[in-house]
């Protein structure tokens, strides 16, 4: 979503006027040396007339005068700069940009030309060029509020949020109370985890008159900061504003909001309502695809596995060339341990999407879970040999090798992965696991220490390291790691059990007994996010928004 520039041209003009004395007197003097005196006067007068016309908003006249001035003084950067301003106001962006570029070529320290250029490029949605020019502007003039402001807006558009807010905060320009901008700002705060600031902007937004698409966006952001009721309320109002048959997307969005709020049963019901509305309106079945997907995810999350599979299968069959539906379907089948069906579904998905990396990976995982180790190995190897730039297929391959008693081979494959992809936590962790299984405990400990370094908050790495230390008799070291694992993951029964053993070995019978007492407790239920690894459908938008989005460069 892109705002129109808010700073009126007159301000630019005034700023230009403020900065006029900056133009190198030497340069002007030099220019004057090249032009005969009587011509120089004529050019200067044309320039002044041009400026006056511009001030009076007589852009055509301004252009004539400044063109004449430029003809006489082609090397005067000021003229190029102002001619650029006039051309910009006349909507001749390309020519305006050329003028600004010429100005800065002639005077590389002409800050206002850089600023003007940046502003122009921004309005033309050429964000990279805008960024380049405005960065130069603020370098040259660190106190230029507007340069910072525009740079902030550009960064906001580029979704480089931390820099965007830094620039906007450096600028004194008050933020406009304009929905489009506020939505961007809120999105930025959410992305940066600055929830309080996001909340402030979102609360401001809900009091404004929003376009439908803006309402949807605001709702999604409210959900991101767990203001579920506010989000659902907003989408409900949106839905109620429109007749169901004319804006079925609103019904869908309400279902999606409800799902994201964790009200899965309700979401499933709403998704089914949406499908019914589409049926009644005679919509094409392809329009129901996102709703089937949403219903399936909702059913999955509240434990209605069979209905989830049915709904997700509908989505996949209606849109076989969209891999995400096969991924969702197979994800649920695997969750239900229906591995044979999962394998069949992946194969169906691959038949329609033979180049899908994710489905190839899923094939490997499904075969691994089903105990078809040869097939799993083949699937993962295909990805590895195809030069997978991600580490997941290496990890999958290592898993298969470990399952089939080839720990050393697993360690070797992971070493190759590390060489290719660089050190990552997962590679180091599984290397540690593989080396431990291969009986190479000192090397396993080295790898696990590396994993710990790469991800200090991983309880699993600490647990594995502690276990390995314990196995080689380094009891105190084991206790340290296992205690940390427990601190990072309270209620981790494995850590507790191993600690009981470790303290027993250390002769601390009291602590051993303490951990033994908790060892048989059931671990606390994992608090996963509502949606796990499903691929969510997108928010639906009104048609006019879709067209507006499509028309953006």
């Amino acid at each position, binding site marked *: 979503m892109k705002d129109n520039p808010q700073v009126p041209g007159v301000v630019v003009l005034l700023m230009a006027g403020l900065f006029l004395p900056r133009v190198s007197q030497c340069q002007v003097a030099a220019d004057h040396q090249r032009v005969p005196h009587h011509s120089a006067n004529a050019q200067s007068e044309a320039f002044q007339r041009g400026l006056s016309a511009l001030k009076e908003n007589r852009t055509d006249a301004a252009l004539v005068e400044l063109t004449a001035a430029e003809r006489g003084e082609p090397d005067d950067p000021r003229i190029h700069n102002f001619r650029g301003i006039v051309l910009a106001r006349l909507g001749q962006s390309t020519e305006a940009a050329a003028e600004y570029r010429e100005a800065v070529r002639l005077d590389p320290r002409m800050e206002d030309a850089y600023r003007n250029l940046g502003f122009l490029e921004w309005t033309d949605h050429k964000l990279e060029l805008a960024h380049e020019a405005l960065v130069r502007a603020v370098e040259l003039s660190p106190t230029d509020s507007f340069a910072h402001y525009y740079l902030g807006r550009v960064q906001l558009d580029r979704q480089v949020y931390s820099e965007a807010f830094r620039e906007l905060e450096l600028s004194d320009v008050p933020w406009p109370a304009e929905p489009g901008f506020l939505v961007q700002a809120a999105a930025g705060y959410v992305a940066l985890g600055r929830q309080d600031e996001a909340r402030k902007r979102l609360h401001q937004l809900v009091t404004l008159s929003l376009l439908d698409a803006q309402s949807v966006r605001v709702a999604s952001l409210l959900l991101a900061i767990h203001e579920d009721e506010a989000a659902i309320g907003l989408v409900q109002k949106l839905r109620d504003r429109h007749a169901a048959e004319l804006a079925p997307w609103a019904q869908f969005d309400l279902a999606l909001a409800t799902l994201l709020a964790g009200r899965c049963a309700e979401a499933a019901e709403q998704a089914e309502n949406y499908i019914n509305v589409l049926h009644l309106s005679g919509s094409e079945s392809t329009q129901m695809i996102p709703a089937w997907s949403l219903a399936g995810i909702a059913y999955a999350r509240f434990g209605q596995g069979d209905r989830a599979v049915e709904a997700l299968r509908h989505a996949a069959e209606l849109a076989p060339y*969209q891999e*995400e539906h096969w991924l969702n379907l197979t994800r649920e*089948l695997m969750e*239900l*341990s*229906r*591995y*044979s*069906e999962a394998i069949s579904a992946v194969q169906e998905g691959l038949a329609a999407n033979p180049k899908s*990396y994710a489905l190839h990976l*899923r094939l490997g*995982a499904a075969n691994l*879970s*089903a*105990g*078809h*180790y040869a097939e799993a190995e083949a699937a993962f190897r295909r990805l590895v040999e195809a030069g997978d730039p*991600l*580490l*997941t297929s290496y*990890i999958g391959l290592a*898993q298969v090798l*470990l*399952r*089939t*008693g080839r*720990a*050393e081979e697993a360690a070797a494959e992971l070493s190759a992965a590390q060489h290719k992809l660089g050190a990552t936590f*997962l590679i180091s*962790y599984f290397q540690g*696991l*593989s080396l*431990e*299984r*291969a*009986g190479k405990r000192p090397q396993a400990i080295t790898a696990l220490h590396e994993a710990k370094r790469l991800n200090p908050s991983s309880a*699993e790495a600490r647990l594995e390291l502690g276990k390995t230390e314990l*196995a080689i008799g380094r009891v105190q070291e084991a206790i340290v790691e296992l205690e940390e694992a427990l601190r990072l993951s309270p209620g981790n029964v*494995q*850590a*507790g*059990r191993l600690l*009981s*053993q470790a*303290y*027993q*070995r250390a002769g601390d019978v009291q602590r*051993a*007994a303490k951990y*033994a007492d908790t*060892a*048989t407790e059931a671990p606390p239920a994992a608090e996963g996010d509502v949606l*796990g*690894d*499903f*691929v*969510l*459908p*997108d*928010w639906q938008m009104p048609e006019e928004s879709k067209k507006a989005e499509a028309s953006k460069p």
Partner: protein
Amino acid sequence: MNRQRSSLHMSARKQWAIGLAILLMPASGLAPAQESANSQKAKPPLPMVQFIDIGEKAGLTAPTIFGGVDTKKYILETTGSGVAIFDYDNDGWPDIFIVNGTTLEGFPPEKAPTNHLYHNNHDGTFTDVTVQTGLVATGWGQGVCVGDYDNDGWEDLYVTYYGKNRLYHNDHGVFTDVAGKAGVAGSGKAWGTGCAFVDYNRDGHLDLLVANYVDFNLRTVPTPGEGTSCNWKGIPVMCGPRGLQGSKNILYENRGDGTFTDVTTKAHIDRTNGHFAFSVSTLDFDDDGWPDIYVASDSTPSILYHNNHDGTFTDVAVMAGVAFNEDGREQAGMGATVADYNGDGRLDIFKTNFSDDTPTLYRNDGDGVFSDVTYAAGLGSHLQYLGWGTMFLDFDNDGWPDLILANGHVYPEVDKYHLGSSYREPRLLYHNNGNGTFNDISTNAGPGINATSSARGLAVGDLWNDGQLSVVINNVYAPPSLLRNTVRSGNHWIAFKTVGTRSNRDGIGAKISVKNGQRTLVDEVRSGSSYISQNDLRVHFGLGAATKAESVQVRWPSGLVERFDNLPGDTLQTLKEGSGKIVTPNKVLGKGKG
């Protein structure tokens, strides 16, 4: 589609899901054997063992009937039953007792399957003497253990059931069920599994520990697919044990007058409750002269009852490291066996588990703790088998206990769905390399090992008194297997029958240490063990090249320690308490404090 959670970008969470939603990863500590160029031309080496199944030929012909054939509606139909090798008629030759089961539908009385006792004819054959010995019995037979509970010189039998357990008093080769009278029949509603006779208070009378599995009620248990614990890899199967109520193990103290008292609470056995207990193995793991008890448990932590010397026990399994595997995870423990596999003088434990898991070898580290050394020992390479009966046995008499496992799945459906396991599974045989590791030699160990069955109970014994250990396996819906090793290694052996005089007559609980050159081989006289089965009570040692046992020390349950020197190899020796050279006199006899 929304890419916020796109699998294409493989969020860390998905990477974890793939990476960590795993079962135990196996590793073989041993690389596959590499053939040298020379060996390609040389004759293949003679196999070190060849087990062949002579069961049918030997006369073990009655199949074990256990629940449904193509599907098991309830967990009751899956556990199978045990086997005992014991000399019921005191002729010096071990006989074979096979526990049998039944079906949900039942049988007309004249056709109901029964347990079977097979008399050893000493010539390689056995005769079914069930009827004449009074051992005809029907029902959901489970496990069996042997002990002369009344010290009359005749081995008695205890058979567990889903229902009332049976204590068969042996009167010169004829048995009578005296369980009710003796007070060990149980409630009639419990599901007894493993058992072991053990003189826990060292008063000279064998007491009895009975493991119980699930609090099972046919009227209320859910049906296949009815709940989350009634599905396996997406297939609706019988429910449990998870989701069902675990049970309580029972300890009976022998009063010395033919009756027993339930001392479960007094002995603190019931402080470990709610486990799905299977096999009972006794061992003095901390070598303090008092028997401890290991109970392998399914889907719940296994139990190690440490004897407190005062009539009570404390479950120290978690602290000792034998409740879970090396990752601290529960396993579905089935059978267990005890031996000093690494020759350090301490008794270690090996346990079989469910499929998609490895068995577990716990090495006794001597300080009250064990280490799970499964992978390091080379025992972690098979995840596809579901293990049941298992025993350490020195099949080549080289002085290092080897391992045999009997396997078989619980779900007949597994064949149809091709999920990495099969219903009938081969046995596994591991050779002990003498350095803390084992080699899987199954494929070269003979047809008796590679044959597939849905096996459960397993017992080991020297059936022909020739130093060659044989194996009897109880198979579901098939006759028992009797595996005889046809390869003679050339190594020597010695076996001991203990006769207690102040201790219990069988000498159960006696620790025998055989000094053999630089090594000392140790084991105990043990009732129970394996999977709800009973092995030959005579303790067998391989001597390797040594032709005699230089010195044999026995620590009796009474406390007396005595020595027998220079016993010839390749013989079965009877060691009578009090007839050796005293090393340490008896401690004060009488019951333990309690």
